[in-house]
């Protein structure tokens, strides 16, 4: 049984119920059940191969659900396509790594981000997004590949924000970024959650991410093994063992 140290009265935004998913014949999510609170930053942690990125991809409809249900604000979204999740349910996903189209300009990348909105709405919203990212604003017509790593990540998040998502799924935002830039990105995610967006983040840089997060969920071998408040977990002397994939032998974590 997973252990839980979170407040049960928090409204639930995302719920995975006994989900099985994977790649081809390989099962990664092994009857995974978890709940993500609305308007919070929730960090998914676990060792490599635990199923963190797979959980995000499955949630975003990029991998089929073989068993179980996924609910968003109580509505069943199992099997919904990415496009539906973006347009009808307000779920945006920033995958791992560099996600811009390097040969296209910054502006064209933003336009692509709003492709599900229609051109008129996208062009109306682009200035709003740019206000939040002044460094990107000054490079609108540069090739996206010419931006620094931090600017690229900001543009990726900005592109996702064009859709004014209710839920932002973000996979390893710190990869390839300097510590200072990572802090900027984390602050941005914190601000989004404070404004009401539910943020579910997968991050290897666990200690830094726990400082940003409200809650943390640990996975091991495609199963949910722990759900606690981030600040409690940060002060837990067993954090490294938990992050590396160990689980307590018995009994709940106090």
């Amino acid at each position: 049984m997973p252990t839980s140290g979170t407040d049960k009265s928090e409204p639930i935004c995302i719920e995975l119920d006994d989900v099985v998913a994977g790649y081809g014949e390989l099962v990664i999510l092994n009857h995974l059940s978890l709940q993500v609170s609305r308007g919070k930053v929730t960090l998914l942690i676990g060792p490599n191969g635990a199923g963190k990125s797979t959980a995000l991809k499955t949630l975003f409809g990029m991998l089929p659900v073989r068993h179980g249900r996924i609910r968003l604000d109580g509505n069943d979204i199992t099997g919904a396509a990415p496009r539906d999740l973006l347009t009808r349910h307000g779920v945006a996903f920033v995958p791992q790594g560099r996600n811009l189209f390097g040969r296209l300009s910054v502006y064209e990348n933003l336009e692509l981000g709003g492709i599900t909105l229609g051109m008129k709405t996208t062009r109306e919203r682009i200035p709003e997004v740019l206000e939040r990212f002044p460094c990107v604003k000054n490079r609108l017509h540069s090739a996206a590949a010419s931006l620094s790593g931090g600017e690229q990540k900001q543009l990726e998040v900005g592109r996702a924000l064009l859709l004014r998502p209710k839920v932002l799924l973000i996979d390893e935002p710190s990869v390839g970024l300097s510590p200072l830039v990572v802090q900027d990105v984390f602050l941005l995610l914190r601000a989004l959650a404070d404004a009401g967006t539910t943020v579910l983040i997968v991050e290897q840089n666990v200690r830094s991410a726990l400082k940003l997060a409200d809650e943390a969920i640990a996975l091991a071998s495609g199963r949910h093994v722990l759900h606690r408040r981030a600040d409690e977990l940060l002060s837990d002397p067993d954090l490294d063992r938990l992050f590396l994939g160990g689980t307590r032998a018995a009994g709940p974590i106090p």
Partner: protein
Amino acid sequence: MTRQPRWLIGMVGMAALLVLPPFLRSYGLYLLSYWLVFVIATMGLNLTVGYAGQASLGHAAFLGIGAYSVAIVMKAGCSFWLGLPLSAVLCFVVGLGLGFPALRVQSIYLAFATLGFSVAALLVMRYEEWLTGGTSGINDVGRPSLFGLDLGGNLAYYYFVLAVAVVVAALLRGVLRSPWGKAFTALRDNPIRAESLGIDVRAYTLLSFAIGASCAGIAGALLASLVQFVDPTPFGLGVSFTMYLMVVVGGSGTFFGPALGAVVGVLLPEWLRFAQGWYLTAFGVAVIVLMLWLPGGLLSLPDRLKARAIAASRPRT
């Protein structure tokens, strides 16, 4: 090369295409029209291959479907103006169908799947005599008239083909400059990233084939009326390879690439005819040298020269 010089060269080229043809002989006009037909067809293939990143070796089949559609419609006594849109629509629909293998396989496997389609289409053209006339083909495919203006003459028909090429180019330009057009590029660069933005990868893959095929259908319709005769020979597998070559040699995924590529694929062999029996060998060597020297295509030449000039101007340490 920056955009302004590229457009300036484009405008000069267009002016030449408008002004010079009246001074050409009949064969020159025919060659120029033939080149424009392949520019239209390869613009479509460039969308499929260059922008959307889908390998297709079935393009000659669409050229054939377009040509036979017009020939069959006109043989039945209907107008060219019915045959032209029919060619485009039919190829669009068949192109959608050909896109389905691309949803399951990519790269060389997709190339072979489309090659299989090309073989099947060629066999239909060759052996379904009741429809296509078999190896004897269909004779006396007429040329149309437009608002009372007879397009039967070589010069008039050349200007008509040029006008269609400009319209197709403008439409494709509009598509490619829109966010929906950028979605094709996104699909080529990384389908997973594209999907994460809500781009319907499945629909765009199919559309890239369908639009590309539709352009080839239009080109085929124009070809039928240009040659005034249709048989399976111009739609063989070699033509599919040549069209692919035109896209790559011109500059895959560049807007003006197909025009330059078609110069290499259509006009260069004619210019090399002075070599008589060696002209195909000379053509092959020219293509190998081009690909080794300019793997990014002819349109990458100015950037390459510029980079070399910058490197030469740097002081050596």
